[in-house]
């Protein structure tokens, strides 16, 4: 904010921002405050019957949460979803974007559509197909592994494999969106840069390393944050694929944990505490992400 504008400019800017700020205030700040208040109570099924049954609990929900093994398990899984699934998604998206955007590629529109299709496909429909792929006896994946002599893996039933299986599905389902953003980023790189690099004798790798990657870094920031936040909020994949986080909670995510507490058991106060903790985790992660990339933006 160097060279601040006049007061009139500031006022105009505020007027332009007002509708968006109003919407954020109404639909974001107010619910967040409500959740925060709710998280200090033990509002539950008994509270539904008679609001006199709701107690002010102070920080008790948060303490219970911190002592709950299941929450830590869910948080651990969620971090794996985000820290493994996130980079994998971005890497897949980058690879796909480079292929689709390559000067040599034909039918660019078609491929872009194909890669983007999973993003807009209903997860429930996708789940039906993927459950077949992962089927321990008749699944395509195990048949392919069988050809190279790897014994059958019980993808969704074995606690060790269920989380990787879920991440694979999530990466396939989500990379298309990041790909579109990266293609947008690629197309803003001036072609002159590549031309001059080639004149200087740079090969494909050095072009990629010294032109494409640095020029894409603002895009990476955006894509990284969006993808990671998406993974922190992963819900539908384990909800439909493993009947809510099984086996042995190996695929349970924080949002799924919150959903079960809130809507299955109606421990709304406790679920609100989970929601608020997740909000803080995502906030911290996003702040960290911005901080790590701060050099690139200037």
């Amino acid at each position, binding site marked *: 904010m160097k060279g601040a504008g006049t007061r009139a400019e500031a006022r105009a800017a505020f007027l332009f921002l007002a509708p968006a700020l109003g919407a954020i205030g109404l639909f974001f700040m107010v619910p967040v405050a409500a959740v925060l208040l709710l998280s200090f109570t*033990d509002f*539950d*099924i*008994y509270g*539904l*019957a*008679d609001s006199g*049954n709701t*107690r002010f609990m102070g920080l008790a929900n948060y303490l*219970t949460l911190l002592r709950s093994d299941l929450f830590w398990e869910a948080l651990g899984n969620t971090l794996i979803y985000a820290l493994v699934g996130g980079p994998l998604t971005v890497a897949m998206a980058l690879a796909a974007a480079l292929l689709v955007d390559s000067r040599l590629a034909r039918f660019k529109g078609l491929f872009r559509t194909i890669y983007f299709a999973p993003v807009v496909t209903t997860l429930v429909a996708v789940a039906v197909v993927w459950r077949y792929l992962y*089927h*321990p*006896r008749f699944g395509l994946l195990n048949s392919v592994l069988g050809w190279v002599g790897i014994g059958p893996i*019980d993808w*969704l*039933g*074995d606690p060790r494999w269920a989380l990787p299986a879920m991440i694979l599905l999530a990466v396939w389902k989500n990379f298309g969106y990041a790909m579109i953003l990266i293609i947008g980023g690629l197309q803003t790189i001036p072609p002159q840069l590549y031309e001059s690099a080639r004149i200087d004798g740079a090969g494909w790798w050095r072009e990629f390393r010294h032109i494409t990657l640095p020029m894409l870094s603002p895009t990476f920031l955006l894509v990284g944050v969006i993808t990671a936040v998406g993974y922190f909020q992963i819900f539908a994949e384990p909800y439909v694929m*493993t*009947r809510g986080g*099984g*086996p*042995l*909670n190996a695929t349970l995510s924080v949002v799924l944990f919150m959903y079960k507490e809130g*809507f*299955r*058991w*109606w421990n709304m106060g406790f679920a609100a505490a989970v929601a608020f903790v997740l909000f803080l985790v995502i906030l911290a992660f996003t702040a960290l992400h911005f901080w790590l990339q701060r050099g690139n933006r200037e």
Partner: protein
Amino acid sequence: MPKVLGLLLLALTLAGCGGRDGDGRVTLELWAFGREGEVVQELMPEFERLHPDLRVRVQQVPWTAAHEKLLTAFVGEATPDLAQVGNTWIPELAAIGALEPLDARIAGSSAPSKIATNDHFPGIWDTNVIDGEVYGIPWYVDTRLIFYRRDLLAEAGYTELPRTWAEWRRMMEAIKARSGPKRFAIFLPTDEWQQPVALGLQNGSPLLSDGGGRGAFSEPAFREAFDFYLGLYRDGLAPAAGNNQIANVYQPFAAGDFALYITGPWNIGEFRRRLPPEMQDRWMTAPLPGPEGPGVALAGGASLSIFQRSEKKDAAWKLIEYLSAPEQQIRFYELSGDLPANRHAWNDPSLANDPPLRAFWEQLQRVAPTPKVPEWEQIATKVYEHAETAIRGRATSEQALAALDRDVDRILEKRRFLLSRRAEGRAEP
């Protein structure tokens, strides 16, 4: 805010009806779940013929969403006039005041569609009684018992299933000894709480102590049953596998991968449809053995309940009477395969002459309810979660049960608070 939301929903519902009430008839709204929701519609034309002033709108809800939808509807003040209610949900819905007590209506019920307590299986009826008041009329009944391969039992030297745990266990050992390391005597899915809980009830465990205020899973009655259950996995009689690891249970059953399987009446139809023809005379059902003789099984099934907020309770009661009559119960059985709650319906040849149903008839005389606390479903999932850690060797039986009791005590904390507050309220004059 819930009021406004409720009104909005109501407005939407009314708009959805398209003013079919224009002819002066009363429209009842009935929610039914899954397959039941599908087939109950076929019983409605007859009801509407008998009661020309009534119409029934059946809303079909998938089972997986049913429980959440009922609670959400209660919050949004958009409950139907009556609904099918899984009988383990009744304590919860009664606790929040969603359901109408039915005692007066049962007392006033008269022939030809009289609803009488002794027309029902006592253990099933009991699941509908909370603090002495009846909140639902059993619609269909359900319990889990043993489906077994007659030929494999015969090979091991048994013509029928033993009645005590000790003999039952000896029989499973004999089957296992003949079938080899890759096959098992019994399939007990590790992700089902029903099996350890039924064994615990058989052994006299109350499951909860202090009036439903604390878990009683570490106490000897449950621990003995749990050790028996755990032993089946530890000694290789049962595979340590959950439902999602065995996609199609009928194939391994037909292949002889296990000889016994504890499951419910819905599988009678499935076994007939899915097992190959040559298997059809090789399977049968048997009641659960118990520690010292025939044991209890879990009282399952669903009831029909009227919602407190309904303005058409008299009409809703007529529909319950109609659906409880033996003729409709038999038709419903033929359409859905759900076992009739009305015992008179069992005299019909379609039920009385069906061999696999005999074990169910016998078992239904001996069924026990799970603890009637609103938190039960939550406790039940904890049971199998902790049982699974012991089955997979991540905890000893003592550790698993102690951890289970800790979780259950935490879940019941609010209930203990409310119980003690109520007790104090009574102590003060």
